[in-house]
Structures are given as structure tokens and as C-alpha cells.
């Protein structure tokens, strides 16, 4: 019998094509917005998580000034100091590397006229292990031919960004002075292609980054500037078999006990943060899309009221030939539910199409690859939800139809 009711409802919808389609458009716009927002949101979250997990792996974490991430991020403590040897002594830590940023007075070689270029530049201290042990954080770095990375025994050597090497007139093998102390240039970074998608890893090195920065071994900065006050970030790799969150907790506790104000951030921390952020954004956007769904629902309700009025006589006939109130009620509910469902189906297709286009644009314009997430559960929930939306919008009109007194309905002209 339910199947027949579906047929009756479908006939009625098809009979009023124009109005039905207009009503369905009202639903479909809302569903399109919801589906597009959700699938883009899920895709973005997945993309970010994938990238973060690629960088962190399962065996690394980052130590950063407290507050550098999350709300108010970037305004970390200035008194962040870490003794890497102490960090390495913590149980479970296999390798630790740090980046420290100072501004130093740098002087290049005299040119043909005997002029030298000098000035204040960003001088970064890199642990030698950084490039060898944590490539995923640093990204792809490429040195000009003949150059080399830092080794454990390096002291007064420097690697320059390509642009600054040119400006300082300091090619590979030449000498520059930092705070009056001579350094040998052992490497020059190759500048990446501008339009190449960023492969910079988390630190934003590689490719074009670091063009006007002078890099020296981490420990040398201690000789030049004393104990570290502004360590940007410290990377830690744990020994095999250790639990990354446990080690991170131990490191955080140990270092903070010594007065450092730091936090250890693992993959799961970042992933949680991304998840929280994305779900807040998604909830906000879904709320906006929800308003358009509400409008669509009111459209369905309006159409159903009109339909009940128009078909008053038909309702009377159905009741005269044996339809119970509940039968009439169900037929009208199915009718409004089906309008919701069709709107939902069309909206799902358009929404997925829209998010696909959005991901294409993002990848073309910004070089961000977002996988559109079109999970079966998203589709099923959307379709069920849109049927429910229609049916709920039809509750009141259907009730009115079912309560029409048969004699009055038959008399209706």
C-alpha cells in the first residue's frame, strides 16, 4: 500500500511540474550549500592532516615557545632557551635539532672597486642534524654545486641564501664576516622556481625561502650572542619503540621545570587543533547553510498548503472511496518528502560538483591540493535528511488535509 501511496504522490508532483520544480529549487540550493561546505571542509581537514602527518611522522615532535600555536599564536615567550644536550639526555629522545634566529651585522667581500656590502641581516643558527635528520620539516633544500651541509665539527662556516650571496659578493668558498668574525661560505641555496608549488615543509625553507638569510651552525651562535633567547623551534626525534606523546610530555615537564616556557607539540596535538578549528568553521558555515534549508522547507510547506487547497475535492473523493485520515496524511507527507528528496539529490550532485570545482580552483590558483571528500555516509545522510526536511515541512499541511471533513471537501468547488 505504501508503494501505491508513493505512486500517487509522484503523480501529483509530476502533474504540477512547474510549481514542484520551483519548490525543489528552494530545497536544492540549501542542500548544495551544505554538501559543498561539508565536503570542502572535510577535504581541507584531510589535506592538512595528511601534510602534518607527513611532516611529523610518528616519531617526531616540536618544542616551541608557549603560545606560539593556538590563540594568540606567534607571540611566544622571548625567554625561550633550550640546552639541546639536556634535551638529548631525556629518556626516549634520540635526536634533537633547533633553529635559532638572531639579527647580526654581516659584511661581505670587497668588490672590484674595493667596496664592501654590509648591514644587519637575519642570522639563523641551524643544528647540523636539522638537514640530515629532519628533512620533512625543512623541506627540499638544494645547494649550488660544490656546496655542502653542516657537519658536527663545523664551526665558522655559513650557508647563504642565493640572493644574499650575490649581494654580499660572497660566492661559494669565499669569506664573510659576522659580527667581525670570519666565516667560510660552504654552501649557497639554489633558488626555486617561483611558480613551483611550495615544497617548503613546515619551516618554510627550501624553494625560495631563506633568500636573504645567513645560516650558520647552531652552536656558533652561542659564541657570538651567548645563550639562546629566541629559539624559534626545536625538533625532537624519539628512539624507536618510544611513545611520542610520552616523550613529549617528559620533555615538556623537564624543560619547564628549569624555567623554560615551552610546549611540546606532537602530531596528535596539531591534528586535534586542526580538527577543532575545522569543526568550528564547519559548524558556522553549516549554520548559514541551514538558514537556506529552512527557507527551502518553508517553500515546501507553502507549496503543500496550496496543494491541499487545490486538491480539497480530490481529498474528499479519496475519503469517500475509503481512504482513512491516516492514508491521506501519509500520501501528503510522502509528497512533500519526495520534493525534499529530489531537491536533496539534485543538491548533492551540485554540491559535490561545486566542491570539485572549488578544489580545482584552489589547486590551480594557490597550489593547494584538496581531496574532495564525497563519502557514502555524507550522501546517504544528506538524502535522508532532505526527505525528512520535506516531510517535516509537510506535517502541518498534511494534517490539515487529513482532517478535512469529507462532506465539506466533496462540496468544495
Amino acid at each position, binding site marked *: *500500500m505504501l508503494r501505491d501511496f508513493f505512486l500517487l504522490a509522484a503523480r501529483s508532483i509530476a502533474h504540477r511540474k512547474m510549481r514542484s520544480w520551483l519548490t525543489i529549487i528552494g530545497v536544492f540550493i540549501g542542500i548544495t550549500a551544505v554538501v559543498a561546505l561539508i565536503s570542502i571542509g572535510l577535504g581541507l581537514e584531510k589535506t592538512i592532516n595528511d601534510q602534518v602527518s607527513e611532516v611529523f611522522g610518528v616519531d617526531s615532535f616540536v618544542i616551541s615557545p608557549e603560545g606560539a600555536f593556538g590563540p594568540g599564536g606567534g607571540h611566544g615567550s622571548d625567554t625561550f632557551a633550550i640546552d639541546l644536550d639536556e634535551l638529548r639526555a631525556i629518556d626516549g629522545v634520540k635526536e634533537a635539532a633547533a633553529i635559532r634566529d638572531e639579527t647580526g651585522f654581516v659584511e661581505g667581500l670587497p668588490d672590484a672597486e674595493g667596496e664592501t656590502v654590509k648591514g644587519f641581516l637575519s642570522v639563523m643558527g641551524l643544528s647540523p642534524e636539522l638537514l640530515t635528520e629532519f628533512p620533512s620539516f625543512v623541506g627540499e633544500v638544494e645547494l649550488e654545486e660544490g656546496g655542502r651541509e653542516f657537519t658536527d665539527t663545523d664551526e665558522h662556516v655559513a650557508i647563504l641564501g642565493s640572493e644574499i650571496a650575490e649581494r654580499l659578493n660572497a660566492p661559494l668558498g669565499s669569506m664573510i664576516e659576522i659580527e667581525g668574525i670570519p666565516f667560510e661560505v660552504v654552501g649557497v641555496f639554489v633558488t626555486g622556481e617561483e611558480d613551483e608549488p611550495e615544497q617548503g615543509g613546515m619551516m618554510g625553507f627550501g624553494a625560495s625561502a631563506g633568500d636573504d638569510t645567513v645560516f650558520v651552525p647552531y652552536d656558533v651562535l652561542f659564541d657570538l650572542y651567548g645563550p639562546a633567547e629566541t629559539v624559534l623551534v626545536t625538533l625532537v626525534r624519539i628512539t624507536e619503540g618510544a611513545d611520542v606523546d610520552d616523550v613529549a610530555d617528559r620533555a615538556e615537564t623537564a624543560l619547564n621545570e628549569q624555567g623554560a616556557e615551552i610546549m611540546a607539540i606532537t602530531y596528535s596535538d596539531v591534528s586535534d587543533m586542526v580538527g577543532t578549528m575545522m569543526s568550528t568553521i564547519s559548524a558556522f558555515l553549516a549554520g548559514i547553510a541551514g538558514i537556506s534549508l529552512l527557507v527551502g522547507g518553508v517553500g515546501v510547506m507553502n507549496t503543500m498548503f496550496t496543494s491541499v487547497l487545490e486538491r480539497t475535492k*480530490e481529498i474528499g473523493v479519496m475519503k469517500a472511496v475509503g481512504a*482513512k485520515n491516516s492514508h491521506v496524511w501519509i500520501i501528503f507527507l510522502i509528497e512533500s518528502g519526495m520534493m525534499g528528496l529530489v531537491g536533496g539529490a539534485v543538491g548533492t550532485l551540485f554540491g559535490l560538483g561545486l566542491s570539485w570545482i572549488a578544489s580545482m580552483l584552489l589547486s590551480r590558483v594557490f597550489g593547494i591540493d584538496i581531496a574532495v571528500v564525497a563519502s557514502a555516509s555524507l550522501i546517504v545522510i544528506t538524502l535522508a535528511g532532505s526527505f525528512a526536511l520535506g516531510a517535516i515541512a509537510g506535517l502541518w499541511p498534511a494534517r490539515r488535509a487529513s482532517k478535512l471533513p469529507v462532506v465539506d471537501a466533496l462540496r468544495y468547488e
Partner: protein
Amino acid sequence: MPLLELQDVTKEYKLGKTTVRALRGLDLNVERGEIVGIMGPSGSGKSTLMHILGALDVPTGGLAKLEGTDVTSLSESQLVTVRGRRIGFVFQTFNLIQTLSAQMNVELPMIFQKVSRKDRASKAIALLERVGLGDRIHHRPNELSGGERQRVAVARALANDPEIILADEPTGNLDSESGASILGLLKELSKTDGKTIILVTHDPEAAEIADRIVRLKDGAVRKESAHA
């Protein structure tokens, strides 16, 4: 026992602030198998009587019995069952569902009685063949002539094998030829199938097929006669 028995039936309803007394103590018995014509001027209570005979409405006062059962004591859903199974309606304006084919229109009463799909289809086709529309089963009402539509309506009235056919001005919207053929059909249903037919009409020709005429005036039976 008469099939239908009305005793001192009154029906009042409110129209705005005034109370309309549509039936004022009406008595009527209808025997199984007879064709009863109900005539009377507009406002005489014909339609109201029709509604009560068809279990579409219940009287305000008096008794209305179908095979001895007082329908005034039935719940709304019991009334639906009574009219769905025991009464078939033929209306002046046909009242077919425009979006459905002739066959589906005939199947409709059976859907509500939960008759299986297969039984329904064969019954509907047989009924349409019986009323001479075997070649029109897939046509929609707007593709049929007035006479054909009323034949579909008669077929629909027969769908659940009711004992009673209530025809409210069945020839009112038809030309005389189509009207005559519908009347012939109704008469045949009475003679060969033993259906009880109650025919509300203005049309003297329609009244001719009746075994007996009940004339109403001011909500009561004014006169009964054997023929028009």
C-alpha cells in the same frame, strides 16, 4: 430487515450564525436490490440525505441503520470502512482523480482496502471492460468524454463489490444519449447483480428507471410513489 433504515432523522448544521435544519424528521426504508429515486427541489435536503445514506456524515438526531447496525454510533474510521466496502459513489461531476489513468482510478478504492496489486489490476480491467471501456484503461480522465468518465466512475463505484450504489445526479453533466446509457448501466447492475441503487436526481428520465420515487420537501419525505 430493510438494508437501509432511517427513523426520524434530523440533521442540523451551522452556516455562520444561523443553524440550518437540513433534515427534519425523515423516515425512509430501502430494501435490498431496489432502485430508489430521490427527488425534490434544491434545498429540500437531498444532498444531506445522500451523505447520511452514504455514511459520509452522521445525523444529528434519529436512527440510521445499515443492516440493523446504527451508523450514528460508529467512529469515524468505522464509517470509512463502511463506505469503503459497502457503498459505491457516482457523482454528478464524476470526481475522478485527474492525475491517474482510468485503471488507477478504479483501483483506488481497492488500494485503501489493501487488495493485492495483481487482484486489483485484473478487477479494474474487468470492471472497465464491463462498462464498455476495455480499450480506454490507460487514458486519463481528460482524454475521455463525459459519458466515458462517468462510466469510469461507475466502474470505480463497483471496485469493492458494494451492496449499495449511491448516484448523485449521475446524468446531470451528460448529454441525453450518454445519460441514457449510464442509466441503462445502473439498471443493469440492479437487475443482474442485485445491487441496491439510490439515485438522487432532478431528471425525470433518470427517475424512470427507479422502482420507487421518494420526494423530499423541507427536509422530510413529502410523498412516495411507485413511479415518477
